[in-house]
């Protein structure tokens, strides 16, 4: 019962068929970041390219649980093509969903497939799994191209 609440079909779908999980070539306009969850070892490498205030490309590779992988897939789909401003707003909205203890609001609707993660917010230990890709996105699009990770 609880289990189905957490692992919604949408999450399992993204886990089995992740979006944009293939790193684009790291040319001069792109930023690469590498984020690790130190409590479980899950990791994501993310490349983003921002042109004229628009996130034109988000690609990634990673190792981790269904929640971290599915969440990164959803994030990549939402952020690619969105304005820098909107991408940061989405990341903030997702963070607020993760702090919601599972209670969604109308504002969460912008997260589309990301809404399926509401159930994860009931499991404090898994929240950081869901946030891994989003934190990498925020980091990547806040940097200048060529700026080094770490």
């Amino acid at each position, binding site marked *: *019962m*609880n*289990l189905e609440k*957490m*692992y919604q079909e949408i999450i*399992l779908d993204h886990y089995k068929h992740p979006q944009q999980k293939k790193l684009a070539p790291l040319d001069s306009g792109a930023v690469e970041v590498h984020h690790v969850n130190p*409590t*479980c*070892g*899950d*990791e994501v490498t993310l490349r983003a390219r921002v042109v004229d205030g628009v996130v034109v490309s988000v690609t990634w590779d990673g*190792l*981790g*649980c*269904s*929640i971290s992988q599915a969440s990164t897939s959803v994030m990549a789909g939402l952020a690619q093509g969105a304005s820098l401003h909107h991408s940061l707003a989405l990341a903030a909205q997702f963070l607020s969903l993760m702090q919601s203890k599972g209670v969604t609001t109308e504002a969460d609707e912008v997260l589309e497939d990301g809404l399926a993660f509401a159930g994860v917010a009931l*499991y404090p230990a*898994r929240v950081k*799994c869901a946030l891994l890709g989003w934190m990498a996105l925020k980091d990547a699009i806040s940097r200048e191209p060529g700026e080094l990770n770490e």
Partner: protein
Amino acid sequence: MPEPKLNAELLKKDFPLLERTVRGGKQLVYLDSGATSQKPRVVLDAERDFYENHNAAAHRGAHQLAEEATEAFENARAVVAQFIGAHSREVVFTKSATESINLVAYSLSSADSPIQWSPGDEVLLTEMEHHANLIPWQEMAKRTGAILRFIPVTDEGLLDLTNINTLIGERTRILSFTHASNVLGTTNPVRLLADLAHSVGAVVVLDACQSVPHEAIDVVALGVDLMTFSGHKMLGPTGVGVLWGRFDLLESMPPFLTGGSMIEVVTLESATYSLPPKRFEAGVPNMAQAVGLAAAVKYLTSVGMDAVAQHEVDLVTKAISGLEALPGVRILGPAGPRGGAVSFLVDGIHPHDVGQVLDDDGVAVRVGHHCAWPLMRRFGVAATTRATFYLYNTEDDVRALIAGVERAQRFFGSAS
């Protein structure tokens, strides 16, 4: 005379927490004792009794309560010492095994250390150490210029002793390793390694966190110089650990934490220090926790450590054969003889997800890197699912584990 088999069903009743339910009414099945054990009522009562009836600062003051607190604390030391075949004056109470290892690494690298360090001197560890027996040595290496070397681990999960005679050499000053792996369940050949290290004059430190709680230990027979373990993994309270050391070695070691209670004479400029163990117990000690640990030791002794060990062998054997019978499940670590940690991988399902399904059934296991990240890397995995067993676990608990893993396979559609 062989000890009678223990009755886990009966013992379980001594542990109030094990009666509770989790996740909406599921009976708790606790398989994470390797991280920390649950506490029997006698331990909780002993701590409460200390606070209700004898609490005062041990080793200070001359009133009756101070005398009683001192006596309770020193009795606890004697009980723990006897449990491992040691002398009371060789038993130092610390906060934890982690603190004990930091104490040793710091003391043996400070200016007054009995070991005089030269560049190129070596500290030998193994690839299977818990971070608690790795990072203190990394920090020590920064201070002393010592080189860290590592005994490798075979694919089977045993220490690879092929090149041990070059790993242990003239330059080896310290050998520090775990008795039993908290990930692989491997039990290491302590005496053999200790004797080799002693032949080159090295100091031998043993991390006994995963052995002292689970089997009868005679520290003299092990042949090491220093040994550490944590109270909370052996039915005792948190906040108390033990450092055992050969007295002459402890006597030659400078203190780690300094302050009250560990001094002889103090002036504004300098101080002289007490003999061990007090030299290493600065401040008002963790009296109630030490008393609680002594109660845990008495409880374990009354059950019988050989019976505890045999019970765990039975459970581990059943767990391994049950898990191995599932397609796509692989156990990490040696077939046997082995300790009680059973780490495994399930094809196509991340350990976090396996753990989540088990948790949904009320089965508590550990998932992740188990504070042994380099060992995970050695096996090319980011994480494992780990079940650990103790005297209160039953065959039903093992069955719940296996049923939970099967459910995870069904849920994620990966059973072949």
